[in-house]
């Protein structure tokens, strides 16, 4: 469904709600049907939608409608605030290890954007005066090492590789190499894997045990659907991740996974990828994401002004 179509649909549903005063239960119920659809259309997890709607309904019923707003706008405002709050939290920063090097491990499903976005992060840190090292721990994907070397060269960030040996040994050697050569950050590029692949999940646990990473970032494609919660929960259960990076937000996916993943793991979304180029990385803004998930950026800015 098109972005605009949904906004219109919401607006139409909200037109039915008139008058001022307090939001009645009936007002809220009516609006929540549309909000629920909007969230599902945005690929928010079915179960998370259920919880969210229940929670917001409770908050909204009886709320005073502000002078400048209609009940419909009021509900949208509450929903938006609640979404923003749920996706916010710990600030979007990489933790820096007290004793260098800071080790950042990029993990996730196949093709999510680990290699590209790990490189983007390294480039960003380099601009901030760090001396990052990229480490090639993907020994499975054809030409994975070469890919990392190419992006490393584009950023003028060194790449550590040992060919196709055990990734655990590569990770250890990369950290040792960084210590010796004054690299204060190491980004570990790991192979894509399914969360149900036990052997490969064990490999990540072994890497974690071997190098004790400062940050483990789960990289997630913004186009992902209902499976986001399964994958995120499995990666978090196995690795106790520190945060999430949401990629490919330059597309038109509404990115409901941002809400779902935060809801099931409690871990913050720290960064977003907004393009294939290596400088296309931004910190995560929960408020922008909330409007995007609702598919109603315009309406919200109207409400903000009100």
């Amino acid at each position, binding site marked *: *469904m098109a972005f605009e179509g949904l906004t219109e649909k919401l607006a139409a549903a909200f037109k039915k709600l008139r008058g001022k005063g307090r939001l009645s239960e009936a007002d809220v119920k009516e609006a929540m049907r549309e909000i629920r659809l909007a969230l599902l259309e945005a690929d928010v997890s079915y179960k998370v939608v259920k919880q969210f709607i229940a929670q917001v309904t409770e908050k909204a019923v009886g709320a005073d409608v502000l002078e400048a707003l209609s009940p419909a706008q009021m509900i949208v405002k509450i929903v938006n605030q609640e979404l923003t709050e749920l996706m916010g939290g710990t600030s979007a920063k990489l933790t820096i290890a007290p004793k260098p090097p800071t080790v950042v491990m990029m993990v996730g499903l196949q093709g999510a954007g680990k290699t590209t976005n790990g490189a983007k992060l390294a480039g960003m840190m380099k601009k901030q005066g760090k001396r990052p090292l990229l480490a090639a721990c993907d020994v499975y*994907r054809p030409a994975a090492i070469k890919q990392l070397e190419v992006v490393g060269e584009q950023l003028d960030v060194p790449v550590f590789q040992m060919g196709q040996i055990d990734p655990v040994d590569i990770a250890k050697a990369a950290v040792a190499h960084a210590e010796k050569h004054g690299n204060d950050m190491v980004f570990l590029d790991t192979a894509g894997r399914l969360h149900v692949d036990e052997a490969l999940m064990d490999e990540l646990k072994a890497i974690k045990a071997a190098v004790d990473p400062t940050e483990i970032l789960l990289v997630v494609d913004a186009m992902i659907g209902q499976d986001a919660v399964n994958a995120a929960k499995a990666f978090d259960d196995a690795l106790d991740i520190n945060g999430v990076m949401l990629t490919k937000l*330059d597309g038109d996916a509404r990115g409901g*996974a941002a809400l779902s993943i935060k809801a099931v793991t409690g871990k913050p979304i720290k960064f977003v990828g907004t393009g294939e180029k290596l400088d296309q990385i931004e910190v995560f803004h929960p408020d922008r994401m909330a409007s995007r998930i609702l598919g109603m950026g315009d309406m919200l800015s109207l409400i903000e002004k009100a």
Partner: protein
Amino acid sequence: MGFFDKLKKINIFSTLAHLGSELNDDFYDELEESLILADTGMDVTLELVAELRRRVRTEGIKTLEEARACMCRVIADAMNVGDGALDLSTTPSVVLFIGVNGVGKTTTIGKIGAQLRHQGKKVLFCAADTFRAAAAEQLTIWAERAGVDIVKQHEGADPAAVVFDATSAARARRSDVVLVDTAGRLHNKQNLMNELNKISRVVDRELPGCARETLLVLDATTGQNGLIQAKQFQQAAGITGIVLTKLDGTAKGGIAIAIAKELGVPVKYAGVGEGIDDLKPFNAADFAQALI
């Protein structure tokens, strides 16, 4: 053996046992939920369930087991919208692989290349992704694994120029099939979508009348955006089929039902792993079985 034998199946109908054997509203509600959890989308879910209700009435279906079988038929009927086989009737014929970033285009070419070669065909890979870091190297490794030839240029070259080279090479070497790898692109980037058009025109001009397929590669983990992707790629490049990849995970790929229904484009292959043999002809009945 069906192609989903490899997959772990969670049959929601077994979890419905607590509802008793009655086909009541609870049953339909839970069915809806499971379809939405499979990324089928609200609209299509409601359509499918309405169709099931209709058939339950007209066919006099009474039990959960029968209802499940019927639901599978409803889904399979929605998906059987065209020929699952590739049209490779001319020598050479050309298959273009397109899709958003990271879905599995290059890997799928490796797998299909190997299958076609085993069928005795002379296959040529064309590395028309000149943008992504080490894309040509990746395809080269797949060409070695599949035992087929490859045409490539340097990184940053004009993709249409690589396709031109490949068409000439295909004529000179009497290749049976040319498989063209393209760079991942998001469907909302008009300039990149136009590039597909340019590639297509080169094929038409250099190999007039050749049999052509344009396969949209779709990641099974994709949510509702998948339908928008399919529509945009359809408009820009005219897709003839879908390859649904990464079905070896827990994602069900339900958005493919919406695509088949709305665009009338069949799923032709299913990707079920990263290995060279992990690609199967798509079977809608098996897909439906795994979905619910």
